C-alpha cells in the first residue's frame, strides 16, 4: 500500500501559501477540519479563497480565519449564524459568491471525477444564473456549471488508515467525501487512525487514491451549533 500518513499538522499543510484556493469540508460546525483550520490560523497566511458550504460561527470554524482577515473570498451556499462574516460582506471587505448547495456539492464532485462541466436546474431564472449559459433539455431549463479548481482540500473523517482510506460518521460526512481528490492536494485528518487492513474494503467511503496526506487529528471540540432536545416526559 502507498503510505499517505504524515507525522503532524505542520507536515500535512506543507505548501499552503497566500492567495491559494482551499476546499473545506463540513456542514455548519459538523465534520469541519478543526486541525487544519487551527494550523491555517497559526500560519497567518492570507488572501485565501475558501470553498465551504458555510463560514463557521464568529468564534469557531472558518470564523477563526475571518476574524483574522485571512479570507479574501468565500464560496458558500449559506453564511448565516456569523455576524463578523455579515459585517465584512456588507462592508465589501469580503468577497462572497453564494451558490446553491447542490451545485456546490456537484462542482466538487465534478472536480473529483474529471467532469469539466454539467447542467443543473438549480438557480435557473435567478441571479446565480446571470452570465451563465442556459439550455433546454426535455422541455426544462438548466444552467451550465463548471468543476471547481482548488489547491488544497481539507477534510475530516471519523476513521482512516495509512493508505488514506476514509470512513465518515453520521451527518459529519456531508461535503468531505466529494472534496477528496477535488483539489491538487487532499489533506485528511481523522479522529481515529486504525491499522492497515482493519477497515472493511466494502465499507470504505473514500478510497485512499483520493487522499494525498492523512494525519491523526487531535483535540476535537466538535461544537454543537443548535442543541435541540426533547423532554423525557414527552410522548415518543
Amino acid at each position: 500500500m502507498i503510505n499517505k500518513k504524515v507525522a503532524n499538522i505542520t507536515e500535512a499543510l506543507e505548501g499552503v501559501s497566500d492567495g491559494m484556493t482551499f476546499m473545506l469540508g463540513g456542514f455548519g460546525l459538523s465534520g469541519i477540519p478543526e486541525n487544519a483550520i487551527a494550523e491555517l490560523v497559526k500560519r497567518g497566511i492570507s488572501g485565501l479563497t475558501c470553498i465551504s458550504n458555510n463560514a463557521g460561527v464568529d468564534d469557531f470554524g472558518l470564523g477563526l480565519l475571518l476574524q483574522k482577515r485571512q479570507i479574501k473570498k468565500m464560496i458558500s451556499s449559506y453564511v448565516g449564524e456569523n455576524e463578523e462574516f455579515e459585517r465584512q460582506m456588507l462592508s465589501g471587505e469580503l468577497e462572497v459568491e453564494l451558490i446553491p448547495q447542490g451545485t456546490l456539492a456537484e462542482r466538487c464532485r465534478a472536480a473529483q471525477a474529471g467532469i469539466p462541466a454539467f447542467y443543473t436546474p438549480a438557480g435557473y431564472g435567478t441571479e446565480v444564473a446571470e452570465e451563465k449559459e442556459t439550455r433546454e433539455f426535455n422541455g426544462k431549463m438548466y444552467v451550465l456549471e463548471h468543476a471547481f479548481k482548488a489547491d488544497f482540500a481539507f477534510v475530516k473523517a471519523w476513521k482512516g488508515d495509512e493508505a488514506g482510506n476514509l470512513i465518515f460518521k453520521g451527518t459529519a460526512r456531508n461535503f468531505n467525501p466529494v472534496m477528496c481528490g477535488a483539489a491538487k492536494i487532499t489533506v485528511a485528518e481523522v479522529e481515529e487512525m486504525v491499522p492497515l487492513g482493519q477497515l472493511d474494503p466494502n465499507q470504505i467511503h473514500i478510497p485512499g487514491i483520493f487522499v494525498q496526506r492523512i494525519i491523526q487529528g487531535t483535540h476535537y471540540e466538535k461544537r454543537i451549533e443548535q442543541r435541540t432536545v426533547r423532554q423525557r416526559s414527552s410522548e415518543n
Partner: protein
Amino acid sequence: MLDKTGIAQRIAKEVKDGYYVNLGIGIPTLVANYVRNDIEVEFQSENGVLGMGPFPFEGEEDADVINAGKQTITTLPGASFFDSALSFSMIRGQHVDLTILGAMEVAENGDIANWKIPGKMVKGMGGAMDLVASAENIIVAMMHTNRAGESKLLKRCSLPLTGVACVKKIVTNLAVIEVTSKGFKLLERAPGVSVDDIKNATEGTLLIEGDIPEMAF
C-alpha cells in the same frame, strides 16, 4: 388566524403515505410533529440523512448527527447517512416527493424569493434553489404579511428570486392557496378569518370561486 404551529398542523395534512419529505428551516421543521401516525413518511435533510426521528433526549445529543438547520436530531430504524452529492441526487433527481419551505415573497406565477435582501441580509440560499428547481411538489409555509404588514403574496416578487414558477401551494396564517396559471386560488380560510381579510392581505391576483370553506384539522 393561525400561529406557526397551526400552519405546520395544516401542512401536515398534505403529507401522504409513502412520501419522502424535505423540511426547510423554521415552520416547516414543525410539520414533522403533526404528521398522522398511521402513515409511513420519511424525512430527508439535505446535509445527508434520510429517516430522521425526533430531537434527542437531553444528554444524548451527537455533534455528528444534525439536520440542515444544524439542530441535533435522532434517526429511526432504516435511516441512512450519505454525502452531499448523493443528497442532492435525491433532490435534483426528483426522488423526494414533497418539499416544504419558508419564503419572504411568493408571486402569483409561483416565483419564490427567500434568500437575500440586497444590502441588508444575505444568508444564502443553502439548498433551497436546488429544492425549488427540482421538486414537483412544493408547499410554502409563511405568514401572509411581513412585519410591516405588507403582503408577501405578490403580483411579482421584488426580492432576488430563489426559483421561478415552482410553488404549487401556500399555507399562511390566513389561508390555504393554490398557485394556478391565473393567479392565487383561495382554497381555505383559517378559523375566524374572512375572505375579505385574505383579499386585503393579498397583493397578487386572488381567485375566489364559490364558498371558501374554513380549514379543517
